[in-house]
């Protein structure tokens, strides 16, 4: 019996030759256990060595192989060809980011925004190393654990229509990470993060479309994180109105 095949329609863009991105169609074997990334590796190895894309771990940890598959942001290492049989499958770079080449996007914007929300433990009183570690109960860890699973794959930014329309929006992953540290019992940096997180470009830009949480491969739920921060910010505001001389 002849080998079953499936077509991949892949975005190609070379900044020196192409005025705009174009599509190129490749035919690959449709193996039951092949993911889209396997197909791209097959194309690069046997058909077209010039195809560029990012990947590393092949197991949903590194977060580098995110692409728009049939219009939906997916990790291509976790997206089986058979889901889309008989095809064709459209493979495009992640939406909302500038394309560097083919399927490789420029995430400089995110890299610039991420440190602005200070996604690390901020301490007012730094304990010396001899004082030992900052201890935490399993319950305290549970509060932020879900939000700490982000792998910075950028699927949420590609899915977010608000980020697409308003690029100044800090965005789902960075805000979810800010929330993760705000919830951490060892952290004392919530006030220091407020200027960025509670700004117009921060949580208030989000209109709770929720697509970020739908596409998140790690079930981080950035949309939920942002809504929880909105509640905290609203309570802060209420406190500042009824108790303006309070310690803020």
């Amino acid at each position, binding site marked *: 019996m002849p080998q079953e095949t499936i077509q991949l329609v892949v975005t190609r863009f070379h900044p020196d030759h192409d005025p705009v991105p174009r599509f190129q169609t490749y035919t690959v074997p449709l193996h039951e256990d092949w993911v889209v990334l396997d197909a791209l590796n097959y194309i690069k190895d046997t058909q077209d060595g010039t195809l560029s894309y990012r990947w590393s771990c092949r197991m949903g940890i590194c977060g580098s192989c995110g692409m728009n598959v049939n219009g939906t942001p997916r990790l291509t290492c976790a997206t089986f060809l058979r889901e889309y049989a008989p095809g064709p499958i459209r493979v495009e770079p992640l939406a909302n980011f500038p394309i560097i080449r083919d399927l490789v996007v420029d995430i400089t914007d995110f890299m610039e925004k991420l440190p602005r929300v200070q996604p690390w433990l901020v301490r007012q009183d730094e304990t010396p190393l001899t004082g030992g570690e900052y201890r935490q109960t399993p319950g305290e860890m549970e509060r932020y654990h879900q939000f700490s699973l982000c792998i910075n794959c950028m699927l949420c930014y590609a899915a977010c229509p608000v980020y697409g*329309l308003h690029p100044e929006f800090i965005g789902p992953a960075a805000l979810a990470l800010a929330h993760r540290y705000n919830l951490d019992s060892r952290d004392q940096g919530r006030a220091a993060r*407020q200027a960025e997180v509670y*700004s*117009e470009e921060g949580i*208030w830009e989000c209109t709770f479309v929720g697509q970020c949480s739908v596409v998140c491969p790690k079930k981080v739920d950035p949309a939920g994180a942002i809504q929880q921060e909105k509640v905290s910010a609203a309570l802060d505001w209420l406190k500042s109105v009824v108790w303006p001389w309070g310690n803020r």
Partner: protein
Amino acid sequence: MAHASRSEPFWWSLFAAGGVVAAFLVPIHVLLEGIVGPLGGPTPAADYDRMHAWLASPFTRVYLFVLISLPLFHWAHRFRFTLADLGLSRFGAWLAVLCYGAAIVGTALAAWLLITAP
């Protein structure tokens, strides 16, 4: 340098409260007073006299005020962001004035009617 917004938490709080009212209270109210009552069910909307007697209570008026006002602010906030997403974000301040202004006018009108109704 970014700074925490002072106005957004206020409008968002009204939006959130209005969302709760719109999601939980409005459908029940529409069902009881808009469908069950007119069909002859045991609610004040069954006839004019009962409706009028129901409205005499100050609790009813407060309830109706909440039912009308908060969803207006829910609408205003949602509509402001919808207009911004449709490409009007350069008129940001005007959108806010227009949307929240309409909700404030609606709220004032509701308050006036509920206070002055016999």
